[in-house]
């Protein structure tokens, strides 16, 4: 691309023409703001005074590739919206693909080009989140706002003036945004695509802070690790559900003791019963249910072999409040060997049984052998669910920020 130099007609600063094609109408001096009419031998049209230079990591003449096409930054126009936010549109030119824009706003880059197709609905009449179709793709209407030109430099295909206003209406389908730009004389449509700042960084050989402080409306949600984790978690989730289902079927075990212990079966608050465990390979489960907490309070359930204590519910059964009306508990534990064992249940009577009571209060107690525990499968299921949902929850909050 040929680069031609001229002197500014106002301040005589050397200005480079970066080869924008025959449609270039104006050249604005980046130093003094003088506007020159390109097709009339750079005749002076006016001057932008007190332009504030916008923050942008790309400057006039910078070259780089976007979508495998080489573009040169030939001009810049900065805008401010009626909401107070500002951005810079870099006017790009490619010898093969013509004109386009690269917009920069607080770390975000978008690539925009003019399109000739029209939206399926009148964008003037749409409210946020309403659906319209563009080129057979669904878009959600985002917002309408007014823009004002606040800075101009370099070559442009039109004559821009500071203070020029236009109405923009945006609809999004990340990473795309479809915009209608309405000026006094015309209505144009543009397709914008969000460009990863790292790609601009690499393709334009820049070094700048790619930190982005807000979610751009066209920014796609990217969380490859969380997405992969979410997908991968489906396997353990399905397996854990499947195994839990089978374990529930197999988990029945064999009942070796089943008692309804009434007050009359206790001696001095103790119920003692021998039983035999034949299967020491799997877990033993003790399950008890005291629905009559106002009459009994189970204080301790302990299992003994010949000489030693094998298991005790112990602290779990301590009653903290006298108002407790029921007690329940299940415990699974391993025993070393099959054989004869003794159960000792200790309970205190909180209210004596009266002759007028029509129901005899009791404590249900069941001991099973050959029980398999699905606790770790439950943990796996919970972890899988969290891993699965993490991506969707993050995406939900990301999309929420997009609309703020």
């Amino acid at each position, binding site marked *: 691309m040929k680069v031609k130099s001229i002197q500014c007609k106002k301040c005589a600063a050397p200005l480079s023409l970066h080869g924008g*094609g*025959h449609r270039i109408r104006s050249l604005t001096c980046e130093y003094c703001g003088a506007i020159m009419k390109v097709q009339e031998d750079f005749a002076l049209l006016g001057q932008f005074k007190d332009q504030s230079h916008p923050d942008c990591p790309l400057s006039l003449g910078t070259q780089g590739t976007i979508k495998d*096409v080489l573009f040169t930054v030939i001009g810049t126009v900065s805008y401010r919206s009626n909401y107070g936010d500002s951005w810079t549109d870099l006017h790009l030119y490619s*010898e093969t*693909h*013509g*004109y*386009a824009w690269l917009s920069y706003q607080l770390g975000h880059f978008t690539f925009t080009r003019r399109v*000739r197709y*029209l939206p399926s609905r009148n964008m003037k009449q749409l409210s946020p989140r309403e659906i319209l179709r563009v080129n057979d793709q669904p878009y959600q209407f985002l917002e309408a706002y007014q823009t004002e030109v606040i800075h101009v430099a370099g070559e442009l295909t039109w004559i821009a003036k500071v203070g020029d206003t236009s109405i923009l209406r945006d609809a999004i389908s990340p990473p795309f945004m479809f915009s209608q730009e309405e000026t006094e004389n015309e209505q144009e449509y543009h397709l914008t695509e969000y460009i990863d700042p790292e790609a601009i960084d690499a393709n334009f050989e820049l070094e700048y802070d790619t930190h982005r402080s807000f979610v751009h409306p066209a920014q796609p949600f990217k969380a490859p690790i969380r997405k992969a984790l979410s997908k991968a978690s489906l396997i353990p989730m399905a397996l854990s559900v499947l195994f839990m289902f089978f374990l529930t079927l197999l988990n029945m075990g064999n009942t070796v003791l089943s008692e309804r212990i009434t007050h009359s079966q206790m001696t001095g608050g103790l119920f003692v019963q021998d039983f035999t465990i034949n299967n020491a390979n799997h877990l033993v489960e003790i399950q008890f249910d005291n629905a009559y907490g106002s009459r009994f309070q189970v204080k301790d359930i302990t299992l003994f072999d010949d000489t030693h204590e094998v298991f005790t519910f112990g602290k779990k059964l301590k009653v903290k409040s006298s108002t407790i009306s029921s007690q329940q508990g299940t415990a699974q534990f391993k025993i070393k060997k099959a054989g004869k064992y003794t159960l000792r249940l200790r309970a205190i009577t909180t209210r004596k049984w009266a002759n007028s009571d029509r129901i005899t209060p009791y404590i249900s107690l069941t001991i099973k052998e050959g029980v398999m525990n699905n606790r770790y499968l439950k943990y796996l299921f919970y972890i899988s669910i969290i891993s699965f949902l993490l991506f969707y929850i993050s995406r939900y909050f990301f999309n929420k920020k997009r609309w703020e």
Partner: protein
Amino acid sequence: MPNASHYINCPQCGNQLPLTFQYAKLTVCTHCDSTLFIEDDGVRLAGKQSVLSTIPSLLELGSPFSYHKTSFVPVGKVRYAHTIGYWEEWWVIGNSGKGFWISVDEGDFAVEKPLDLDSRDVASIPSRDDLYLGQTITLWKDQWQVTEIDKGKCEGFQGELPKILKVDDVVPFVHLSGQTGQLITLEYLDTGIEAFQGEWIDPFEIKREG
């Protein structure tokens, strides 16, 4: 390279020239740059032309490309100059053997096919002097807006073309734009009006093959 439908020999240098387009009316010898008019009874030498300077382009003579799953081969091109610059018209042959014109003007690409106009069609086309920019007209039951009125001056050509052209020929034209990206080009020639209808195409959708 596309398959040749037949061959001719350049009367100037004897070079064998493959013709891709069956109904080619003009070709330029790739060896001596002579312009050859292809007539029913033979080939007529129409003089030499200066070689067109090479300008970067997405299209290249003889290099096939695809657009929306249809393959095309550019077989000829014409460069026109207008008020403020130039543009190129590429004559491309599609899969079906039909020819189309692709206009390329600084990244604006449009594909158009020639319309067969009968006398009633021609009668319904307004004269160029009656048209002005921004005017909305009804043509063949559709509404069109006049978006460009200009003249193109032929600066040169290359390859095979479906019509006879001469360098410095001036083509007055009018562009009409439709509501959904369609367009009509009306060419007001000394020999009569020619019309082309088509649509804008996205250069990012053009994929070079091979």
